């Protein structure tokens, strides 16, 4: 990413856990787990970045270090110029956090009461609190839910409630740890739209971890992939295809059933079904010469090009790493 002025900066950040395991009756074995194993990245102010990786890759550990509830074992970490673990409380006023699987809301009380506590906790001035609450209520469709006890909310409603709670104090940075987990399609769409608005209008820097790659595709230009505690990719979504050696697929309909097309350079047949054939070629190459070659040699009726599936690309990336 070059020398961007980082709003979030990590240099050689590591987190090593000591895990003690019972080995025999009294003997305990100590084992080191390197949850985060030397990570560098910078996120400029106002950017929305996807942070993805398989389970146990170190995503949540990174987020916990960024909020200051975990201290890095090594390396340098700054958020808005603040060392999170040293000045957790000062930083807390400037960041918002949503852990998708946990909640900051009071289970037994109406949503509104939890927001009242947030207001006191962050000492939000009245006018700003009212304006922010109004905006969240409108955009997240919370109007009818404000007086409902949180325990009666559906998962999607609760998540929207939690996201609003994280934004009432106008945080400059928002960490979202799986904000769409377990949500239905409509709720997911609503959450995404809201996040896009917040990022565009407030200039909030957003770091988003998720297992739902549609979140990333729809929200983030930049994506970082972490696996086994290391960054294995940091760049645009398109570049991921190049790194992941992903393939596009050319689907051709011929006039009649023919043997597999294996004489077009750069493409290989992957499937034949009657007169329809599927040819795979690297995602980085242009489809034009391949289409031309097929059209020249075969009786072509129709064709279409399918873009690679990002999930496959990433699945392949994870698989490659674990094979190492």
């Amino acid at each position, binding site marked *: 990413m070059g020398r961007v002025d980082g709003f979030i900066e990590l240099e050689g950040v590591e987190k090593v856990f000591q895990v003690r395991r019972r080995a025999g009756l009294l003997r305990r074995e100590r084992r080191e787990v390197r949850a985060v194993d030397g990570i560098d990245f910078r996120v400029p102010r106002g950017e929305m970045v996807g942070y993805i990786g398989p389970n146990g890759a170190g995503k949540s550990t990174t987020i916990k270090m960024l909020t*200051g*509830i975990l201290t890095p074992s090594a390396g340098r970490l700054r958020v808005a110029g603040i060392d999170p673990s040293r000045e957790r409380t000062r930083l807390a006023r400037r960041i918002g956090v949503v*852990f998708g699987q*946990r909640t900051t809301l009071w289970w037994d*009380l109406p949503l509104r009461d939890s927001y*009242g506590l947030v207001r006191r906790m962050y000492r939000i001035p009245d006018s700003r609190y009212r304006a922010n609450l109004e905006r969240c209520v409108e955009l997240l469709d919370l109007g009818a839910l404000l007086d409902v006890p949180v325990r009666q909310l559906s998962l999607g409603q609760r998540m929207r409630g939690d996201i609003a709670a994280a934004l009432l104090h106008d945080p400059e940075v928002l960490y979202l740890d799986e904000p769409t987990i377990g949500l239905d399609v409509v709720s997911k769409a609503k959450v995404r739209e809201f996040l896009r608005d917040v990022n565009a209008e407030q200039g909030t820097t957003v770091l988003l971890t998720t297992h739902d790659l549609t979140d990333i595709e729809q929200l983030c230009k930049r994506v970082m992939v972490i696996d086994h505690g290391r960054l294995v990719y940091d760049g645009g979504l398109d570049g991921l295809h190049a790194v992941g050696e992903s393939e596009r697929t050319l689907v051709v309909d011929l006039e009649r059933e023919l043997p597999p097309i294996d004489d077009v350079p750069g493409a290989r047949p992957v499937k034949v079904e009657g007169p329809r054939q599927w040819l795979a070629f690297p995602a980085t190459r242009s489809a034009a010469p391949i289409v031309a070659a097929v059209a020249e040699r075969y009786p072509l009726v129709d064709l279409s090009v399918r873009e690679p599936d990002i999930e496959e690309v990433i699945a392949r990336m994870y698989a490659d790493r674990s094979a190492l």
Partner: protein
Amino acid sequence: MRLYAAVAVSGFRRYATYRVATAAGVFTNTVFGFIVAYTYIALWNERPHLGGYDRSQALTFVWVSQALLGAASLIGGGFQEELQERIRSGDIAVDLYRPADLQLWWLANDLGRAAFQLLGRGVVPLAVGALAFELTLPTSALTWSFFLMSVFLGILVGFALRYLVGLCAFWMLDGSGLSLLSVLLTMFFSGLTLPLTVFPGALGDVARALPWSAMLQVPVDVLLERRHGAAGLGAALGFQALWAVVLLLAGRGLQAVATRKVVVQGG
């Protein structure tokens, strides 16, 4: 400070939402009050002036115990299980990144709960007891206010003790054994099982010096005006305040160690 006031109000309202549970609590406290009252009547008929109480004072002890059962968490309940569960599940992470002090947050929450339970679960059983039996209740408003002060200090001590127990969840995966031990110690050494003045010799002296006695024995004695005058009241309230300060400070210490453990080791 306004934050913690708001937390206390929320703690109060949380418990206030469960009306059926409150009614069930009042019913249980009242029924138990009768059972224990008749047991005490039998006991005090056999041994009048046991522990220095006459029969009416002993019955007052019973009904005040029932009235304080919920508020002072004499048989558990309150925030401790919730704290343990949050530590076990990792939800404590949410509490830790908030710009608020963990101990004050839980204390405010628990004081709100106690205030509700004192009103919601305390007043009715005591009134029923006073109607059904001849109790020794003070007529002086001053004694009542000293009693309330003593109850407040007792609740602080109870909170501080249970906060220590709750924090142990950072080191123990299953805190249920410790919780049970804590409840048993509280039931016995607070005076809930029998007034601590009944125990003879060294056992009695030790029991009366331990912090649990601040939760019930001391407030009841203040109400019964067995601790009176500047010196008597000063000693009683001072004893409670001292334990409250010592245990709250111990809680802060343990909290610092626990937080460091989580922050450095990841729990």
